[in-house]
């Protein structure tokens, strides 16, 4: 049995300790906003927050999490000015195309703005380069992060 704190709720799940968090979220708890892309922490579509920091849920075994607080895209607090600003910027700039990677992009962007209030292009590139987008929405993501940074101040 593994006990996890996800979006403020405690879940006890009966899985092997090596089970990646991703599959507990998606297939057991039923939080599908966190996506599967590669399974080897290469693409970032499974990005969630562990104690506020972006991590790849596909490569994080449940036994490694302990009592860390997990936040998924569904659990982002819209009252948080950074969360609100990021989502709004994404919608205002029509960032999404297919949208599959975007929950992960949003999680990574919120994580970035929590630590760097007003990132440069280089800081954005370095924080976001682990999040692939096959549709190629990178320029709009970069622009949306700048926009959100301005609005969240």
């Amino acid at each position, binding site marked *: 049995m593994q006990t996890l704190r996800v979006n403020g709720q405690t879940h006890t799940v009966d899985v092997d300790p090596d089970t990646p968090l991703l599959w507990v979220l998606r297939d057991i708890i039923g939080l599908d*906003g966190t996506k*599967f892309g590669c399974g080897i922490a290469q693409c970032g*579509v499974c990005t969630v927050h562990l104690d506020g920091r972006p991590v790849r849920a596909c490569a994080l075994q449940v036994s490694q999490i302990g009592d860390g607080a997990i936040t998924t895209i*569904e659990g982002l607090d819209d009252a948080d000015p950074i969360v609100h600003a990021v989502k709004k910027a994404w919608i205002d700039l029509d960032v999404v*195309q*297919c949208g599959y990677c*975007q929950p992960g992009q949003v999680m990574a962007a919120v994580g970035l703005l929590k630590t760097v209030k007003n990132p440069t292009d280089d800081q954005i590139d370095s924080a976001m380069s682990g999040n692939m987008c096959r549709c190629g929405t990178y*320029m709009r993501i970069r622009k949306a992060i700048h926009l959100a940074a301005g609005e969240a101040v």
Partner: protein
Amino acid sequence: MTRAEKNLHTGRRGILLGGGGLLLATLWPAASSRAATGMLVEDAPAPFAPNTYIRITPDNRITLILPNIEMGQGIYTSSVMLIAEELGVDLAQVEMEAAPPGSAEITGGSMSIMTEWMPLRQAGAAARTVLVQAAATRWGVGPESCAVGSGIITHAPSGRTLTFGDVAVDASKLPLPKEPPLKAATDYRLIGKPQHRLDSAVKVEGAAVFGIDVRVPGQKIGTVAACPVVGGTLRGLNRDAAMAVRGVVAVLVTDAKDAVCVVGEHYWAARKGLQALRVEWNVGPNGDVNTRTIYDQLHEGLKGPAIVPSPKGDAESAIAKSHASYSAIYQQPLLAHAPMEPINCTAHVRPDGCDVWTGTQVADRARDTASEITGLPKEKITLHSQYIGGGFGRRLEHEYVTQCLHFAKQVNYPLKIVWSREEDITRDRYRPAYVDEVTAGLNEKGRVTAIKHRVVGPAVVARWDPPELTKEGYDEDLSVATLVTPYSYDAYRLEFARREAPGVITAWWRGVGGTRGLFVVEGFIDELAERAGVDKVAYRRELAKANPRAVAVLDQVAKDAGWDTPVPNGRARGVALQFAFGSYMASIAEIEMPAPDTVLIHRVTAVVDCGQVVNPDQVISQIEGGLIFGFSAALYNEITLENGRVQESNFNTWRVMRMNEAPRRIDVRLMDSREDPGGIGEVGTAAAAPVLANAMAAAQGHRYRTLPLLSPRNLEKEAVR
């Protein structure tokens, strides 16, 4: 919609809510916010359903049923705009449903707007006409005295109003006009004006349901291993170790013994089970295919017989008589699609019916294969089309639906199959490899007198849609950038030598003819300009002079990119011009190469004339994204085989351009045009390889005619240069 179709809809809803097929209804928020969030609905029966695109209920719920699937290209928003423009509703007012088989169209080839431009507007206009007629009749006034907006009909002289819902029942009894008049372009309130995507919020919130997110009560999850060599079959299987994994419930084999599926309570159990499974394959006839085999065969095709579709003049003798001639050979690799959403499909097969949930660009084919495999009649198959997490042509194939059905028919629970990324890349159906040779006859000034262009490679259409292969055996997709071009030649000869690659199945991609053709032709034209010592924009302008739309985008991009201004120190520029997918585009890339294996793309400038624009910012978005998709392939991507096995398997070996490598700037200008709309989804991708290769040639002083540009093959030559 006919009565029978209506009954079918009502009946389907009954099955969905009553039986094992209950789907995601509980996940949907209330109807009012559904419209605003972009959640897909299914099967809302309505008295007013004048055609396959529109349903209006008495409570004024307006559902638009969209014939093309949304896979990122923004087609749901554009389709809604086309209907709403004529129907007289607001975008935020409508709910969206993916069209079921029978009324769904194939989504591909950048065709959606070209195909739907007339019918969707006509559907909206016809519906509005009878809704207004119904209101006018109720009021006893002339329909011409009524106005429509936001789904409300207003009789201004008396101030009376009725909603579409109020008159839905009456309107359903009126005959529809066959050819309703359409608005003049000057009256558009939506078309041509930027509209926000209707699916943004739902995707940003992580609430959009992609195929992989479908959750059906009682479902189990399987993951698959197909024979790693095409054409091979299962030799031996020991289920014990897999079945011993906690959570594994079944190990299934297809009837054809070409794939196995381990089913578990969740994906991780299935995945661990598959890793534990002892499976041996007979590799079959393709066990010795290597990349070299494929390229050798293509290069051999440069000699010998070929098909010659639509020759113009006698290019061969014109070249022979020319002052000089110039030839070049270009080579392009097999390419995977690797959409971010791995291949998946969910199916529930029952004695009395079958539900399939998946993202597909070919809804009818998905339904038909389910019917074939289950033996159930087509009307017993319900396909629930989901948002697609990246198409790029991958989901024009439906073999994963077929495969899912082969497994699902063996079990009595709903089965979702999810391929690992490794399965997704190694068992993809690939964009073909090609070898081309182009020869130009040239006059004293280095200008073209005639062109002969031989294409060697597969005819994708021969497998995908056999009747479309011409009697002579030609695949007309290969005409893009060859026979269909912004340039005019006095004599032109296209030759096609068909060579189907052994050991792989080839398929569509984000453009096949357009992307492969432009890399060759725009590279070759660049070479001719270099050889002639003429400016590359000027050289193209002369060749395209009979084509004003082509010249206009070329001149505009030269202006926008500052082509005539000095290139900043250390940088180089490349240009490309195209007419493909019904649209014109010229593009200029400005790059820097601090090392032979490093390409910094500082800026791409593009000017597009795609005729009448429907949703301008989404056209721009498609160009931006299409370029980046194409840059990944152009710089990095090549599927290779050893002993019939694909060597690339995940994003550590299949490199995708990341944010830090993407252009800092892409500037896209749309020309103002009232021509009929062209396509846009593949336009940017088609430009990517040629514009980048041309810029790299300018930067390095020599040219790569082989893709990918940063292949070990090219870089090894660089090391000894």
